[in-house]
């Protein structure tokens, strides 16, 4: 009698794969399984909480600035603050971040000033000349195009035998692009020190995940590239931090790339130019508010007596003060001279463009 394994026309199974799901803290703040070691560090957990709160306050202010004509189009992180904060918190300073346009939280964690982020969204390239780690990449706008670059960065680390890791962040939509697959495939071939993080917030502007992929998970896309993909509760900052820590450590240790699918939800519009009510129901969004990362961590921290009402009030005041001060510095930034658009076009500006620069400056010799 044929075994069950042989049932499919007698063809043997030659490979099977599995995808793990990581989650520690439930939406109500209760614990689902033993927390990773770092979670006993109240200082670290509250730092993660503070960073998420700062990001939410910053987002709120940025939207207000945009609505009053003082900032350009802006992409909010509302509902998915845990991903960029959790991932960045697991990186070392000498690692290199290649973020997408919605990863403000990661940049802020890594030391980029709030006013620099405002400058970028306010239409000034000086915002990308930021004071975070100098080798970090600027926000990537063409979706997923930073992935091959991350593989290049990681290849440089490997060639120079540097114990550094490239961390590449993008959204669920980016996983539909060849760029991301080409990068992951190459990283798998060369066991590069790179961690790919897909923030699956369920919506690529108006296109829901079910129209984005026929896959059960995005994490399984790593399997085709020859390495581990893990699904993580992206609204649980402890899970994100733990997954990123493990992946970055493995990459640094020469074990090759990892892929993290952070499953979360975009509670806000895609950008300030978008109206999400056109394509999804208020009921859907309302239901998702019950899972959001900040309330979740607060419930846990309060339950553990790691966080108090007084601390909460003090944090609110601090966030307000920090954001307002940054806005003040942003608004007070002197505009650049128009001809400065040529300043970093080439290392040495060719004479033909130097002439255009003089024309723009009104030097009148052209």
């Amino acid at each position, binding site marked *: 009698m044929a075994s069950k394994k042989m049932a499919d026309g007698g063809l043997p199974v030659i490979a099977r794969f599995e995808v793990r799901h990581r989650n520690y803290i439930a939406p109500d703040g209760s614990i689902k399984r033993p927390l990773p070691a770092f979670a006993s560090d109240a200082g670290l957990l509250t730092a993660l909480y503070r960073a998420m709160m700062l990001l939410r306050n910053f987002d709120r202010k940025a939207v207000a600035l945009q609505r009053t004509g003082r900032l350009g189009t802006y992409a909010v992180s509302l509902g998915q603050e845990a991903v960029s904060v959790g991932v960045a918190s697991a990186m070392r300073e000498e690692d290199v971040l290649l973020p997408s346009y919605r990863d403000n939280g990661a940049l802020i964690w890594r030391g980029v000033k709030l006013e620099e982020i405002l400058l970028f969204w306010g239409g000034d390239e000086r915002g990308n000349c930021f004071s975070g780690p100098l080798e970090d990449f600027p926000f990537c706008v063409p979706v997923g195009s930073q992935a091959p670059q991350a593989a290049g960065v990681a290849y440089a680390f490997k060639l120079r035998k540097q114990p550094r890791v490239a961390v590449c962040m993008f959204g669920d939509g980016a996983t539909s692009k060849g760029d991301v697959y080409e990068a992951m495939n190459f990283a798998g071939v060369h066991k590069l020190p790179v961690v790919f993080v897909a923030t699956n917030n369920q919506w690529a502007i108006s296109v829901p995940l079910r129209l984005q992929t026929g896959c059960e998970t995005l994490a399984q896309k790593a399997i085709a590239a020859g390495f581990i993909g893990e699904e993580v509760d992206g609204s649980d900052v402890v899970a994100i931090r733990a997954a990123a820590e493990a992946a970055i450590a493995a990459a640094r240790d020469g074990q090759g790339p990892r892929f993290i699918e952070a499953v979360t939800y975009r509670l806000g519009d895609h950008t300030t130019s978008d109206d999400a009510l056109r394509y999804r129901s208020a009921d859907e969004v309302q239901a998702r508010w019950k899972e959001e990362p900040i309330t979740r961590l607060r419930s846990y921290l309060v339950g553990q007596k790691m966080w108090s009402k007084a601390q909460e009030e003090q944090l609110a005041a601090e966030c307000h003060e920090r954001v307002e001060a940054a806005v003040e510095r942003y608004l007070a930034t002197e505009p650049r001279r128009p001809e400065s658009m040529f300043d970093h076009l080439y290392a040495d500006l*060719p004479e033909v463009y130097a002439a255009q620069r003089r024309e723009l400056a009104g030097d009148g010799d052209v």
Partner: protein
Amino acid sequence: MSEVTLVEAVNLALARAMEDDPDVVVLGEDVGINGGVFRATVGLQARFGPERVLDTPLAELLISGLCVGMAAQGLKPVGEIQFMGFLYPCIDQLVNHASRIRNRTQGRLTCPMVLRTPHGAGIRAPEHHSESTEAMLAHIPGLRVVIPSSPERAYGLLLAAIRDPDPVVFLEPTRIYRAAKGEVDDNGEALPLDVAFVLREGRDVTLISWGAMLKETMAGADALVADGIAAEVIDLATLKPYDEATVLGSVAKTGRCVIVHEATRTGGFGAEIAALIAERALTSLLAPVARVTGYDTVIPMARLEQHMMPSVGRIVTAARKACQYS
């Protein structure tokens, strides 16, 4: 000094650059043990190892994106795309990242990469192997576009491209990869970028071209001697940014200009040069600027491609007409 072909000169320059600078990395499809489909990278992997001469998966977008990431880390990647028809997946990285990362980050990150690819028609290749869309690349701010036309210039300009702190697309004229031979002194000396080369001096008409088409252009200049016409021939060499001063200086002297390129006419780089002359040298002109170009059609496959490309006859006719204009 020894006589080498153009593709051998490319190989010499790559070897020299890798020898001089451990940050130079060569990558592309089949560049390793196979030495590249045109043998431009032959022997490099044996000499410098598989980590610095890297066979990539078959993914052109990846090659260009890897170059951007490596370059941002201070390596000097030299990517090879096997044919220009396969360069198009790289455009996103070239336009959105390589050419503007310095500008976007105000100099915090830079992109000292080179992307090499064979350029042009006339080799009886399959579809998509005979592209000459250099104008598309020359339109991109922040990029350099370089096309050598001889072994000597292939060697010197490629060394310059690799040492340049900004991204360069290096277009190698496929048709004369082996047909062009010349003396190359492998002395590690670069030629200047952004500079046109006057291949032949003349007082009557300026002929401007680049890459493989200089072969026909020089032959045209030879033929014009019988008519008593002394043509000045300019090899533009760097298309972005290009040497306006040499072009304008020559036209001021001759008063007549014929631009020769095999790329299609509309929006071709000849249009840019003609516009420059109209703006800045109109009063020197004794005849309308003429363009001898490929026709506005897809480059035909082998049986018709020679009819699309400018011939010596078309160049001579255009130059005569310019000289007879009154």
